[in-house]
């Protein structure tokens, strides 16, 4: 898959998960969902199936980050797969809520 661009959206190849890219490193980084590389939103799924060891699911509205902190994805549609990149699972970013201003 081409380099991730902030604002672009990607989807899982094996489940319903859709993500919007909030931040991404300049270098190429493959995001994995449910054991298979994620694909562009409009791309056709390859027919691969969900890997049993990567099926913890994604949660709507949660932000997912890598250890380095240079990749951040927002879940716009949840699914069954779990997320990873660069050989490690992505973590849910802890919310630091701001006070409501409007």
């Amino acid at each position: 898959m081409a380099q991730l661009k902030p604002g672009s959206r990607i989807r899982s190849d094996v489940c319903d998960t859709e993500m919007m890219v909030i931040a991404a490193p300049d270098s190429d980084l493959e995001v994995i969902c449910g054991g298979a590389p994620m694909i562009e939103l409009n791309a056709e799924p390859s027919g691969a199936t969900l890997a049993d060891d990567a099926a913890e699911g994604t949660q709507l509205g949660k932000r997912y980050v890598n250890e380095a902190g240079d990749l951040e994805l927002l879940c716009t549609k949840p699914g069954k797969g779990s997320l990873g990149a660069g050989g490690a699972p992505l973590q849910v970013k802890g919310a630091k809520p701001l006070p409501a201003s409007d």
Partner: protein
Amino acid sequence: MNLMMLLEMASQGFGSRRGIESEDTALSYEEIFRAAGAAAEEVRRSGAKHLALLDVSSPAVPVALFAAAWAGVPFVPLNYRLTGDELHALLARIEPAYLVTEPERADTLRDRAAIVTTRQDFLAAARNNPTPEPSWSMDPDEISILLFTSGTTGTPKAAVLRHKHLVSYILGSVEFGAAAEDDAVLVSVPPYHIAGMASVLSSVYAGRRIVQLPNFDPAEWISLARDNAVSNAFVVPTMLSRIVESLGDVDSADMPALRALSYGGGKMPLAVIERAMALFPDTAFTNAYGLTETSSTVTLLGPDDHRTAVASDDPAMRQRLVSVGRALPSIEIEIRNDEGEPLPPGERGEIHVRGEQVSGEYLGRGSVLAADGWFPTRDGGWLDEEGYLFLEGRVDDVIVRGGENLSPGEIEDVLLEHPAVADAAVVGIPDEEWGEAVAAAIALKPGQQVTEAELQELVRQQLRSSRVPTRIVFKDELPYNETGKLLRRIVRAEFAQA
């Protein structure tokens, strides 16, 4: 990116939760989503290039806002106080438009827009017609909202807010679904104000039910807040001032459900915020500063800042109460001098901001953003050592007296310290010797008296003599527009006439 993504997520995440309610209508997030789709279909079919709304707050506001995003046309909320030529001129700038308006206006505007419909007909059709398959543009550069500025200084400009600006603002400041199931926000700012638009978007993404007050009245605001167990509200300073006044001589506002009250859109008098904090002891106060061109809030003075400032004996800490707080994590702020060079803490200059939510663009005039993304706000101000921002009024209001730049806000702050003074506006007036001279319009508290000489002496003691107003007039009240902006041009014009 498209605003519809925010509503679609809300509809998926908590679709059956009530999203908005008014006297006669209540809609869940799923119902708002379905209505937006049906309305978008109507707009597409009409061939209109804008979806305009000339009306007070009602459930038609969120439906129309998202319908425009779905249909791929800009949403244009118009000031419903405008009439005649002023209004016709704005409508001419957005034709062909699909116009949603109040019943009393629909007939008279029939030939001013391609389609004219009443709020009631618009909502009824949106709720009864079928919702099409979701399909909207994800082009982040499409225009989402056009907001005409209040035009306090001339012909209104149309600020351009694109989907990328508004979505960035929401993602940078609101956590999805963060509101509790029974949270409710009371929206009393009009839809043509950026805070009115931001409140719809923030509330939808947070899952916070919207309760609308179409025409602000302090007594109604209080009863609506009590009756609906409102948990959050946003007000402009003049509204808070009138709410505090309306509560009268009581110990407590008696609104236990109101957890958070945010304010912005103008300068908050110290006396008003101190009184409000005493009346609402359990409410968390937040001051938000932002502009239309920055998609609303760029700095926040949070509840802890408020409490710390009020509890402190240190004048520097106490002064924080009149600061607008620190930049959002997604926003950078710099104070710059006239040459565009960054200034250190404590020095006054023009406020520049940068961030994904910052548009700085006007229709037909292009962008005023610098190549590196910085937006000159034309607001004056300074930062303290810890990054708290203090506003000093519009740069264009600066008085240039004999080559020296004087900030009206600094002089007004001193005048307001006098116990007899309720409100003060300082402006520059033409002067043969100095180029400009300092003049002040003063509103006194009921039953209070002070002489011109006493006020001049007060300013002389605290500031340099160049800041002493050479002319002072006393007025019953100062001119404000309906969203709490002081109309300095009127103060200036009155001095010119006198």
